[in-house]
């Protein structure tokens, strides 16, 4: 059977019978269908819109449309004082508010040259790592839902609930904390905080194994993710990927190790990178694995921090918080390792005002998502869903 283009007849499907050509079908036309995936689609993780050109089930082209959640973060920052930006940073990556605050605080502190009390540093690391676990739990759980497994999601949320109540206990809020301030913390942690965090660590260790058995080792899950959406390391670097995405491509790059901040140099933890045994390096499964393994490392960090943390005697969480934040003139770029990659803040100060001249956020999700067009080419629709899920975007951070 052949397809020929005969003038005046459109496309025809013909077959040969001996020396004759027999026309089977006339005026064949196959169209590609434009499929708008989102902004109200269950698996675009928020209000992302993907305009797909589909040929049957195959996506030949996917164009992400952003901006449905744009809240003028950068413009807002130019109109408020430095400390007042902290609540806005919560709303960037709302699943990892503590980490965003942490990144912002260390950036402004670079401009200020303040001495941060040691206990503050440890508490910051503890809450940030707790939040990293919570964020990875959401990422893993929703990834399960994307692939049709509903139960891991609820297991993840059950455990995340404990973290959220711990953080609520410390800060008073469940997701938008405003806890890490420039130069310190809003409050010291409650008296029994370390004890309850340790209880959580001992509770959660077996749960990571359970999750691993239920989801990561599941035959169907592996079939759905292994070898899908492969991103080679060099292309990933060129795209500016960071965090679990880049590590999933086999690059051992973690800002907590490569550009250390706070007390991370004193702590002992591994940077998990897939070795290619259970996954093909750079595929969706590798990215998922990195997240799953990172939770264990975060638990290790939390344990060490609680051991090393100075006691609360004579400690004031706000002792180094400046009355009025008016940094010297200049510009600074500070970054931190967020659950989704490198969150950087570029801040310009004119030295006179208490408001930044410019505050730009370099968001990891936005950069990671930029590779979507490349990754989605020629994939099936279910694979497209798997790829979006493995990028683990939070639209609050993409659109800002």
């Amino acid at each position, binding site marked *: 059977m052949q397809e020929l283009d005969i003038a005046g007849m459109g496309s025809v499907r013909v077959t040969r019978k001996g020396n004759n050509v027999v026309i089977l079908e006339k005026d064949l036309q196959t169209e590609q269908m434009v499929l708008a995936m989102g902004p109200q689609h*269950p698996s675009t993780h928020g209000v992302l819109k993907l305009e797909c050109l589909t040929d049957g089930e195959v996506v030949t082209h996917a164009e992400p449309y952003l901006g449905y959640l744009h809240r003028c973060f950068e413009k807002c920052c130019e109109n408020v004082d430095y400390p007042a930006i902290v609540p806005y940073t919560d709303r960037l990556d709302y699943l990892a508010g503590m980490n965003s605050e942490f990144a912002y605080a260390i950036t402004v502190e670079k401009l200020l040259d303040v001495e941060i009390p040691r206990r503050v540093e440890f508490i910051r690391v503890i809450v940030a790592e707790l939040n990293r676990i919570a964020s990875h739990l959401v990422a893993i759980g929703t990834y399960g839902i994307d692939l*049709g*497994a*509903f139960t891991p999601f*609820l297991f993840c949320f059950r455990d995340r609930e404990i973290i959220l109540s711990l953080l609520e206990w410390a800060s008073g809020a469940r997701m938008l904390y405003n806890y890490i301030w420039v130069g310190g913390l809003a409050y010291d942690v409650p008296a029994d905080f370390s004890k309850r965090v340790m209880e959580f660590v001992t509770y959660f260790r077996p749960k990571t194994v359970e999750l691993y058995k239920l989801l990561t080792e599941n035959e*169907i899950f592996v079939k759905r993710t292994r070898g899908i959406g492969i991103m080679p390391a060099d292309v990933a670097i060129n795209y500016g990927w960071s965090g679990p995405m880049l590590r999933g491509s086999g690059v051992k790059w973690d800002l907590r190790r490569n550009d250390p901040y706070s007390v991370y140099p004193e702590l002992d933890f591994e940077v998990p990178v897939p070795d290619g045994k259970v996954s093909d390096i750079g595929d969706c499964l590798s990215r998922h694995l990195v997240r799953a393994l990172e939770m264990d490392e975060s638990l290790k960090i939390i344990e060490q921090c609680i051991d090393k943390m100075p006691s609360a005697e004579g400690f004031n969480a706000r002792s180094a918080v400046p009355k009025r934040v008016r940094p010297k003139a200049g510009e600074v770029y500070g970054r931190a390792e967020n659950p989704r990659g490198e969150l950087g803040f570029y801040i310009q100060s004119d030295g006179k005002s208490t408001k930044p001249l410019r505050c730009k956020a370099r968001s990891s999700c936005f950069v990671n998502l930029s590779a979507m067009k490349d990754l989605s080419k020629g994939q*099936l629709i279910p694979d497209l869903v798997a790829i979006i899920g493995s990028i683990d975007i939070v639209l609050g951070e993409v659109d800002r």
Partner: protein
Amino acid sequence: MILTPLPHISMPLLMGNSLNAWSEALVGFTPMGLPLGLVILAAIPLVFIALYSLTYGVYGERKISAFMQDRLGPMEVGKWGILQTIADILKLLQKEDIVPTSADKFLFVIGPGILFVGSFLAYAVLPFSSAFIGASLNVGLFFAIGIVAIEVVGILAAGWGSNNKWSLYGAVRSVAQIVSYEIPAAIALLCGAMMAGTLDMQKITMLQSGSYGFAHFFLFQSPIAWLPFLIYFIASLAEVNRAPFDIPEAESELVAGYFTEYSGMKFAVIFLAEYGSMFMVSAIISIVFLGGWNSPLPDIGSFALNAWTNGPVWGAFWIIMKGFFFIFVQMWLRWTLPRLRVDQLMYLCWKVLTPFAFVSFVLTAIWVIFVP
């Protein structure tokens, strides 16, 4: 009237014989020469199943999933939320019946109806006990396999008539899936039919009766019967669109598949049809491989457990319990496994299940011919 034998059923679970007497008395109830008692008897299981499918299937699904996921599930309406589904039905009944403006109105309306008819027609040939069967066809099994295929038409009508791209994807996937999986499913059922030598569901069941209880079931009658049993179970999951083969309604990919545009009572009818087919395939697998309405309990010496637990009403109890068991397994799988991809699904059907179905077919044939 019929009330005279009723005092005998004071201990229904232990007094199998008086239960039979009760149902036999009901059969004999013919006011004005009309066999009303027979009609009532035949209607009892059908009404029960329809009620079950709508209320307790959904309720059970929610409670079982809640149990597996460390939740409580519905708790508000009634004790333990037992009336939750009724409240849901009331809500769905009150909803506005929306037909999208650009939908093909005829297809959109007729789709759920065809689906419903397809899934409930097969109940006609399911023997619920030695006395309860809607239509004792001599090609009952063939009818049951064939009538399920009508569902495909309903799904296609619903998906195409919605005029929604996601619905279209769902419908096309669904048709490909159901039509493909009918092949291994039918071949696997043929193995059971070969062992019985008949397609009559009632006769298939009767051939599995005996005082040794479960040992007479076809699953234990031949060393290879487990293979068609497994193949049919897997294929039936795909036929009724249950996880891990729920790709036609994959909510994370296709929003809700072919019923994306449906709401209100039409949605409820689609749902009812889905739960109806779940019970139907469970009943078929228990009839063909697990003895249908026969009691699985064996006689132990003079302790005639099997004889006591057999009879028309007991039969309905056993087949419904067997059906419930398979529905439970279906739910268990649904809440444990992720979803397969479209091409993996087809791979499983054509390259794994169908060849193995043929193998089991040939082996069963050899067994039936050479081992009396």
